[in-house]
């Protein structure tokens, strides 16, 4: 008889290891209870009227549309960037990878300040956009998208890069021996293989863009219908009318849950 045979049933019938279960439950409770608080304090009788107010619908539409555009831009720029980081060797690749993760760790408001100093009307680059092309980015929905791409794209890049590193390179090598060009290999072999990774990255990126606050309010400002996304609307409402802030928060929560549930179903369990 080996030790293994005796051990397996004992492990199964063993008590729940409370040193793990207790913190796990506490962690779960901690993450869920704030939302329970939102539900408890929500002004249910006036809910129907409040969520159909034009300001709420405008903020919701702006949030959904900018987050979606930001995700598309991030896919367009981020997937090639992830490919470059995962599949090519060039001097400074490690540094480039580290730089990509900076927006993940710095407070978004710092990103907003940086964007304003670079792309603002008087910024390092922005002054030329302003004087040569009469383009002013701050206070426009484009600025909202730029802020969102800045903070959300790294999530996509890291996720796709991980998928690329995990993918079996022998398929790409086989395609290369059969004479496929690098672009063909990328579009016909690599992309289909890492599609679930791209999907998961896009969902993360979209969610992060939807929740973006600091960079947006700093760089894009706050004007209803133009740059006031849901998180900004929640923050501003909280200054005067906490009930309105609760309603907005619940709407955002519900939309996030619905979209993430739908997308997870579709993308991450293919």
């Amino acid at each position, binding site marked *: 008889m080996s*030790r*293994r045979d005796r*051990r397996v049933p004992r492990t199964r019938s063993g008590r729940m290891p409370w*040193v793990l279960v207790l913190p796990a439950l506490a962690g779960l409770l901690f993450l869920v209870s704030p939302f329970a608080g939102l539900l408890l304090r929500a002004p249910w009788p006036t809910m129907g009227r409040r969520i159909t107010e034009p300001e709420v619908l405008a903020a919701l539409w702006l949030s959904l549309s900018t987050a979606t555009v930001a995700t598309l831009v991030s896919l367009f720029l981020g997937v090639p960037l992830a490919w470059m980081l995962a599949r090519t060797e060039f001097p400074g690749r490690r540094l480039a990878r580290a730089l990509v993760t900076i927006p993940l760790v710095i407070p978004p408001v710092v990103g907003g300040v940086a964007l*304003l*100093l670079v792309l*603002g*009307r*008087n910024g390092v680059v922005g002054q030329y956009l302003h004087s040569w092309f009469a383009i*002013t980015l*701050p*206070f426009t929905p484009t600025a909202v998208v730029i802020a969102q791409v800045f903070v959300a794209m790294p999530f996509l890049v890291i996720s796709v890069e991980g998928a690329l590193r995990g993918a079996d390179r022998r398929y790409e090598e086989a395609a290369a021996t059969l004479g496929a060009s690098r672009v063909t290999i990328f579009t016909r072999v690599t992309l289909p293989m890492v599609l679930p990774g791209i999907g998961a990255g896009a969902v993360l990126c979209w969610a992060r863009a939807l929740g973006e606050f600091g960079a947006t*309010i*700093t760089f894009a*400002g*706050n*004007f*209803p219908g133009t*740059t*006031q996304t849901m998180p*900004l609307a929640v*923050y*501003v*409402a*909280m*200054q*005067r*009318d*906490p009930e309105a802030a609760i309603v907005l928060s619940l709407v955002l929560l519900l939309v996030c849950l619905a979209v993430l549930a739908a997308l997870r179903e579709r993308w991450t369990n293919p």
Partner: protein
Amino acid sequence: MPEPTPGPSQGRAAHGAGAALAALVLGVTACWGGSTGQGRELTVFAAASLTDVFEEIAVSFEEEHPEVEVTFNFAGSSQLAQQIGSGAPADVFAAADTEIMEQVVEGEGLAADWAAEHGEDGLVLVTNTLRIAVPAGNPAGIEELADLAGDDVTVALCAQEVPCGAASLTVLEAADLKVAPATLEEDVRAVLTKVELDEVDAGLVYATDVTSAEGRVEGLEFDEAEEAVNHYPIGVLAASGDPGLAAAWVEFVTTEGAPVLRKAGFGTP
């Protein structure tokens, strides 16, 4: 094949790591308390526009009362009122808005003895009036409030949910002007920053904000500002653990602190 059983030494290591983690969390959170365990502490919740002056006044207050340590929480008045309402420990509240002080008076309340002597809704400490702030050199050539309604003038105002936004709305209505702002900022400092960086041609901020950014922005006075003079009430809170010290602070601010407040651009009530 040897199976990966957690040996006793690994188990001890895991316990050790867990204990170390717990100790670290406890240690760090204990540091946050900031208390040295001796002397008296005074916690002042004050409107963000009082930041510079209160910090300056606190230095002389602490010189006069070496055993006292003054701790500040500066934020928007309504945010502070919410925090006080949620039980945040504060001795003194200085708001940039009389209505918000009234909310706190009705909710948590002021210290009864102090309020009986100085006013049930707090003591009006200072006033503040709006100014048109323009970037240094006034590139858009703004001269009066009516210029803000110009078609190609980019304007930043406070959101109407915050006090400076409500005041801006009042003066614009008094002047019967339709201004299309590019942005409604979350607080007055954000408006000032947008002006300072020359991202907008003009913004409405308080006189004290113009003083704080002297050299980087210019302030223009205008008549309609009289329609929305902002009063700053201050009061000792009922929940204060040391109402005597809190009253001493309020007294000190109104007497010794007066020149500092005036220098910063505040008006006298």
